[in-house]
């Protein structure tokens, strides 16, 4: 029996010495990461430092050639399927179908996770997706609107660990504030959030803790 992801307590991510290779390039060169339940952790660092790859590794997508550990209590190298079903990753790409409407996209992802129609409606509301947008094809939405739909997918899937790659990118000031509010609310509802940003000052408003990523490795700092 799976524990319900929302019950995740204690240590959510505990990874050691990860080496992840893209092509032949070691995007991660021995990164460690430890995140406790309920935290909102910022991965800060310059472009190309390995933030994206670290998030992908936590999601069980980028397979480490060395190192390992646990995510949501499951072994990263051996129990990837269990990790994946509890983790939600929103990257530079949103995983949405541009030709389908917002509602159809949410219903599709809901169906893959066994969510009901009312779950889908609730998720859209929770992520402040305007009701009028539901019947608009995703391809016609702005970047900020699309990101909110992608976050609503995480709500529909009841993901316990949210991994967000540059969630503030391409948003205006209002959009960023709104996003911060949504993420705080998600954290209050029990989700753990790890997100990346290269704009340290702005992102630290949201984060409860900051981890620096430099040259494929991590370094804990206070924040």
């Amino acid at each position: 029996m799976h524990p319900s992801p929302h019950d995740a307590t204690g240590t959510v991510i505990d990874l050691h010495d990860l080496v992840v290779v893209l092509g032949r390039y070691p995007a991660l060169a021995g990164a460690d990461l430890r995140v406790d339940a309920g935290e909102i952790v910022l991965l800060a660092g310059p472009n190309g430092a390995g933030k994206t790859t670290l998030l992908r590794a936590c999601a069980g997508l980028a397979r480490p050639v060395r190192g390992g550990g646990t995510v949501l209590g499951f072994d990263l190298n051996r129990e990837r399927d269990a990790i994946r079903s509890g983790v939600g990753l929103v990257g530079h790409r949103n995983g949405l179908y541009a030709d389908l409407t917002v509602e159809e996209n949410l219903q599709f992802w809901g169906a893959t996770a066994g969510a009901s129609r009312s779950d889908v409606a609730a998720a859209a509301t929770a992520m402040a997706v305007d009701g009028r947008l539901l019947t608009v094809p995703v391809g016609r939405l702005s970047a900020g609107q699309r990101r909110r739909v992608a976050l609503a997918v995480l709500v529909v899937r009841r993901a316990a660990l949210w991994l967000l790659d540059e969630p503030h990118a391409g948003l205006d000031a209002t959009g960023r504030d709104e996003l911060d509010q949504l993420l705080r609310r998600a954290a209050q509802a029990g989700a753990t959030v790890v997100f990346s940003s290269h704009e340290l000052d702005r992102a630290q408003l949201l984060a409860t803790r900051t981890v620096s990523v430099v040259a494929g490795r991590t370094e804990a700092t206070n924040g």
Partner: protein
Amino acid sequence: MTTISPQRAEISSLPRGTGTRATRIIGIATIVMIAWLALFGLVLSPADRDQGDSVRIMYVHVPSVWLAYLAFIVTAVCSAIHLFGKRHSLGVDRIAGASAEIGVVFMAVTLATGMLWGRITWGVYWQWDARLTTTALLFVSYIGYLAVRGLDGTQQQRARRSAVIGLLVVLEIPLVHWSVRLWRSLHQEATVLGTDLDVSLDGLMLFSLFVGVIAFTLLFLWLVLHRSRTLTMIDLVGDRELDRAVIARRAEGGIDHA
């Protein structure tokens, strides 16, 4: 000092590179047997009553077919062992890869010598016979297999992907063979090879074919040992390059965790 020098002496007496004493013995045996095969096939053996001199091609053609199919069987078995084995061994995957490379080379030889034989015997290079067509499609499929092996990814990814492709090709072979046989049987009475290969093999001919098959089996063993060792070293060099890249990447950050 006294413990090191005898070892050194032993290592230096071994063949260089991917060789060992075993491969050297296999190699010499292979050369001797292939030399005998060529001598017998080209000089000592008589022409066949029905086929004439073209039967001489069979002494190299049949062993190449045998080797090519042997190689693909080894690839398929190794793919299955990799996929269903508990250890998901990379060593087995390298043997599968080495074997597929050898198979592709000898499939090409098989097709080429087969065409030359066909030109003499049938007057055409190609017949849409089940065996020929299956062989040709198998050849192309394994070129695809090797292309999949060349895709980017970690060694484990490469191994799993190519193992899956290796097994799918196995699924393909009987279906291709069945379809071509059914196709030709509707148009002709019997397959060409089936009737024409009924040559009366005397003792020495049979013996030489036997020698050829043994020689090519040894040749396969020799090649697969050398080639899989080379593939192991390619992976090792890849690992070492990765080590270097990791160190270089860490140096970029100027953080010294160690």
